[in-house]
């Protein structure tokens, strides 16, 4: 019993240690922008120890809802807000202001053992709508394709649906996972898998295929030749007050160090300073 009480007192005491009032910034939203948000948060907290920035990655849709709800101050999204989200925001007296923090492309990834060398947009669409079911129809071995997609509140999914699927429905036997990292994990451990992730999530355990003969890379995204490119956003409620912690955090992408962070995470800074 005594041990328990002393332990309890130690924990509670450690809760009281440390000094000044802490201001907080809550960030919620896309798993694509997640690594950037987490890196920014750590960088900022190191420079300003009195601020606690918490980052959640539950999907672009959830980020939007939290911002409108008032439960977060920065919503990271990998797509632009939809019309009904804007309407709901206005209804709740929230004015969403978007900041484009980085550029990204959606890369189609397969297992490195897959001999297929490239895909076209049309082929990707037909795979995901179920008209192409086997790798042999694409020049590979006779293995059924395991398609993996993002779950429904993902901005990456929405972009993919708009640009590639053009509104058609995904076939029923498609597996769904909850984040970019999860797609990459499934693809790198499943030889027959095909999935899509943001460029920052490509590493040497998966193979990113060129789409319409354009490989996904920072250059092709920036000059627009990669067909599935998109900006990454941070939304705030109204423009943040000049000089406040929120303002400094959200404009990190304009500083040289912020851009170095974006590059080091694997994404593309909007421009180079």
């Amino acid at each position, binding site marked *: 019993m005594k041990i328990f009480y002393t332990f309890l007192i130690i924990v509670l005491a450690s809760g009281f240690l440390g000094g000044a009032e802490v201001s907080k910034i809550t960030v919620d939203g896309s798993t694509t922008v997640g690594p950037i948000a987490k890196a920014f948060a750590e960088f900022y907290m190191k420079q300003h120890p009195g601020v606690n920035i918490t980052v959640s990655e539950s999907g672009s849709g959830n980020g939007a809802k939290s911002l409108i709800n008032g439960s977060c101050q920065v919503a990271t999204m990998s797509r632009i807000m939809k019309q009904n989200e804007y309407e709901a925001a206005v209804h709740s007296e929230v004015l969403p202001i978007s900041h484009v923090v980085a550029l990204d492309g959606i890369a189609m990834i397969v297992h490195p053992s897959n001999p297929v060398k490239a895909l076209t947009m049309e082929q990707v669409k037909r795979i995901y709508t179920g008209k192409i079911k086997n790798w042999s129809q694409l020049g590979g071995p006779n293995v059924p394709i395991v398609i993996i997609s993002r779950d429904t509140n993902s901005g990456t999914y929405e972009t993919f649906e708009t640009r590639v699927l053009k509104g058609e429905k995904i076939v029923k036997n498609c*597996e769904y996972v909850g984040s970019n990292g999860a797609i990459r994990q499934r693809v790198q451990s499943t030889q027959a898998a095909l999935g899509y992730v943001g460029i920052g999530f490509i590493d040497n355990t998966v193979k990113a295929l060129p789409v319409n003969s354009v490989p996904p890379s920072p250059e092709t995204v920036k000059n627009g030749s990669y067909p599935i490119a998109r900006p990454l956003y941070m939304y705030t409620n109204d423009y943040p007050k000049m000089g406040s912690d929120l303002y400094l955090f959200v404009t990190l992408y304009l500083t040289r160090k912020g851009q170095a962070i974006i590059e080091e995470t694997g994404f593309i800074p909007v421009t180079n300073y």
Partner: protein
Amino acid sequence: MKKTERNLIMSDAASRLRRLTALILKGFLLLATAISLVAVLLIIAYIARDAIPFFKLRGLGELFKSTAWYPSGHPPEFGALAIFFGTGLVTLGAIVVAVPLGIAAAIALSDILPYRLRQIVKPVIEILAAIPSVAYGFFALVIFAPLLQNRGGSLLSTAAWLIALPLGLLIIFAVTEIATRSIREDMVKTARLVLDAALITILIRGLLALSTMLNSIKISSGTNALNVSIILGIMALPTIVSVAEDSLQAAGRELREGSYALGATRAETLFKVIIPAAGSGIIAAVILGVMRAVGETMVVWMASGNAAQIPSPWFNFLSPVRTLTATIAGDMGEADQVTGSSRYHVLFALALCLLLTSFVANLASEWVLRRQQRKLGGLK
């Protein structure tokens, strides 16, 4: 000298005060207890309140009859039949894994193992019950799924050997017993040997063929219904074992002693006397295990593949499925009532179905347990 002024008998006023305080206290305690009542009512009310609009908007038919689950499509479709099927399939798989194992283990614990071994096995069961579900999910995703994918065929064939060989041998011995009953005494031994040898060769041949077939199965995706069923079965085991063992123990020593006195073997006692007496308890154990499997979220979210489809054929455990709990967990962000659409309400509709299922299962298990108590209570 000071005398302590204390009356032995309380005055009327004092006793009235005491009774009043006792009443107030009782009322206060009742209020505090009623918080669980309030909580349950609130939960049902909130879930139902936000589920009803879905049924008003889309009616009852679509959710339960259609398999097209496209909540973010244009137009959105909310056919959850495949999801209900997915929950049912993994629950069925979990039952197939957990019930035989669980009941056999309960029998071992209550009748067969000596006291010291029992003291070792009980902590094992408690540890299995205490491991958090996210640890099970981590194991299913990180260790078990790649294992199934890379060595699935050989795993399946090893499992087939492990299960079929002992059972097959048992059946063969039983069959030879029965078949050679009517043969003369001096020829019986040789006859049995011959029959045994013949049947065993057939068994081994069959098993070899089965295992070569299983070895050649390539599991394309390790996150599927089989993965989840096995893990859910292991999670449901402790519940089944402890409740079943409790009810087997509750059958009592007199029943067992009476049966032994009449010359029955332990197995016969168990099968003909104890298990029928404890039958309702075992059924309650199975129901509780089922409830555990149905309500589990993290394991299915991480390792079931989340594909809203009815596998073809329906018993193909090697295909990914989607369950109710994973759908709710994956879409829970929609539960901010900002856009207030069918997508938000359908989550509550699914949660309502889950709630009603667990409510009914709970009532069933309680009723069954009470019946057993009454039955055994009369015998004591």
